[in-house]
């Protein structure tokens, strides 16, 4: 994915090719023979995913965005297993610009679904690292539990994430995050936080 245009302003990188690669990369990737057992690998990505969770809990969105590659995807499928975003509506399927739109909206002060804001704590566990075709990429599975308090009570959102990390210079950046809610195909009340 080469940056010819500023992905925060225009969206040129969401193409048929991107969708094809995305569906390919997120199909049947948690295979035993691809698992990377080395504890330092697991620690590296566990720390990154835990940091992401903390930044989202603390609404530190700029730092959160900086964890992502410039051309990135945040995808919450509405179909168990992911489905095909070319042919199906997702709960959300954000490129860089839409991620920034989402944050911009939350910061307007007029996003009534988040006024008052939810308070969240996210727990991350069961982190497993898998090799990808590209040696400078990793696929990481983690389980999550988000406790969300807002106005009249606390509720729980749970599921698992698939992160695709890519190595750029010395840093590992998130290229794709797929968030698989266990109840993704059921009606959700006020899904207005960044899940």
């Amino acid at each position, binding site marked *: 994915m080469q940056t010819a245009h500023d992905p925060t302003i225009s969206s040129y990188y969401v193409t048929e090719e991107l969708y094809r690669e995305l569906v390919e990369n997120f199909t049947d990737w948690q295979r035993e023979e691809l698992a990377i057992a080395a504890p330092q690998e697991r620690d590296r990505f566990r720390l990154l995913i835990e940091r992401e969770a903390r930044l989202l809990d603390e609404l530190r969105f700029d730092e959160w965005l900086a964890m992502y590659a410039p051309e990135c995807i945040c995808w919450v499928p509405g179909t168990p297993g992911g489905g095909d975003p070319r*042919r*199906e509506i997702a709960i959300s399927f954000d*490129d860089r610009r*839409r991620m920034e739109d989402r944050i*911009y909206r*939350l910061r*307007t002060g*007029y996003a009534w*679904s988040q006024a008052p804001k939810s308070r969240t704590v996210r727990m991350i566990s069961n982190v497993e690292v898998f090799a990808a075709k590209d040696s400078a990429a990793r696929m990481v599975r983690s389980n999550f539990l988000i406790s969300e308090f807002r106005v009249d009570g606390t509720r729980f959102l749970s599921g698992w994430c698939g992160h695709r990390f890519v190595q750029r210079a010395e840093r590992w950046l998130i290229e794709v995050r797929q968030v698989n809610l266990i109840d993704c195909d059921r*009606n959700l009340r006020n899904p207005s936080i960044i899940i």
Partner: protein
Amino acid sequence: MATSRQGHGCGGKPVEIEAMLEKLNAPRLGGADLYEWDELVQEDRVHRLIYTDPAIFSLEMTNIFGAVWVYLGHESQIPANNDYITVRLGLRPLILLRDSQGKIRALFNRCTHRGTTLCRKDRGSARIFTCPYHGWSYLNTGKLRAVPWPDGYGCDFNDPKYNVAQVPRVDSYRGFIFATLNPDAPSLLDYLGAITKPIDEWLDRQPKGQIRVCEANRLKYKGNWKLAYDNSGDGYHVVFSHRSLLEMENRQADVANKGMSYYKNSPDTAPMYIAYMGNGHHFKDKRPNIQKRAGGLWAVEGPAPGSEHYAEALRGRLGAEAEEILDLASSEPVNINVFPNFSLLGNHIQVFEPISVDETDVTWYGTAVVDEDGALGGAVDEINALRMRTQEQFPNFGEVDDLANFEEIQRGLACQEDEWIYMHRGLGIPGRVKTDANGIITAPATDEVFMREYIKEWKRLMKATPKLVVQREP
């Protein structure tokens, strides 16, 4: 397990349906006995109880979600014989299916033996439904097929009363499937009446007038279902409830004209309008605000993942033809609201499903275009990929704020002593509301006349004592 075949219904012969109507025997309070409805629903306001009272909700489940045509699903969700989806008619769980002969039926999802639901999956394909509890099995016509160890029964299982109950009247309008338990309801076509015109226009902008349902944004709120229906034609709330969305989608625009920006300056006098079309249906037509030309809709569509790439690629390949194709990925500026639970808006099919007096599911089914004869110059997959992303925008950034406001209405309505909710915008202003020769009432898009009119129809229905029936195979 030994099972016995019935003497009928297993051959290849199509089953003739005879209306075998049976009255529901459960005693039921007539609507007229419950409240003084004319006090609850007045010319300019309604009482809070219509949103908060469980007894009224319970009556709605028969007098509205039973006695009128209620939307159940789209034919593209059950494309082949034996396909089914599970849906609800009010609170009744149903299996909506195409039987082995291709007939669309809405079976009560309920074993005649002990009441167990027969089908627990959201969708699938089945010729036979076997009850998981005691193994009674039924053909997808609803006819009892077999019961385990029938020698233990002294009855005649040929008696139709053992066949699954089904909704007696199921009909489609151009792919949209509706059903009613009311034998005295008008035909679906008569019920829809004048609202068929905007429905036709909405469909006819799609190639061959066809769409395919492609998953959904599924939302829920803690509030009465009518709050969503009140809102569906409301042009007054837009710049306030959706202020964050309007600011968001225009944050990078050179000219702030994206999305619903046309609401911002004096929406009272804008060319858009609201029309009340009878039988509780209303139609907010925002198309007059948009330049009518190929590419006119795309020009005001907010940013979506892939917007620039797809527009450039299609224009490069198809030239001027690309504009009309890009319009297919753009939101159609209409709200076509069919009472009580169905809306077409943008490219969505929105369905309201009551769960309890203060809980409602709102499901925004996405739609894709279908291009069987290549009219779109090979662009169908691209335009659908883009159309998925444009459709995700409003449920994510607009609807969530409306739903939060509906919840806060429900919370506010706990103030028992402050009884009234007003819907009188436009009332009593000479020349503002116009009625044409066909009885269609139009007014500025910010007017609440559609609420006043539909709630009159609601009141009429709630006063009635409709005779609801189910049907069973003979």
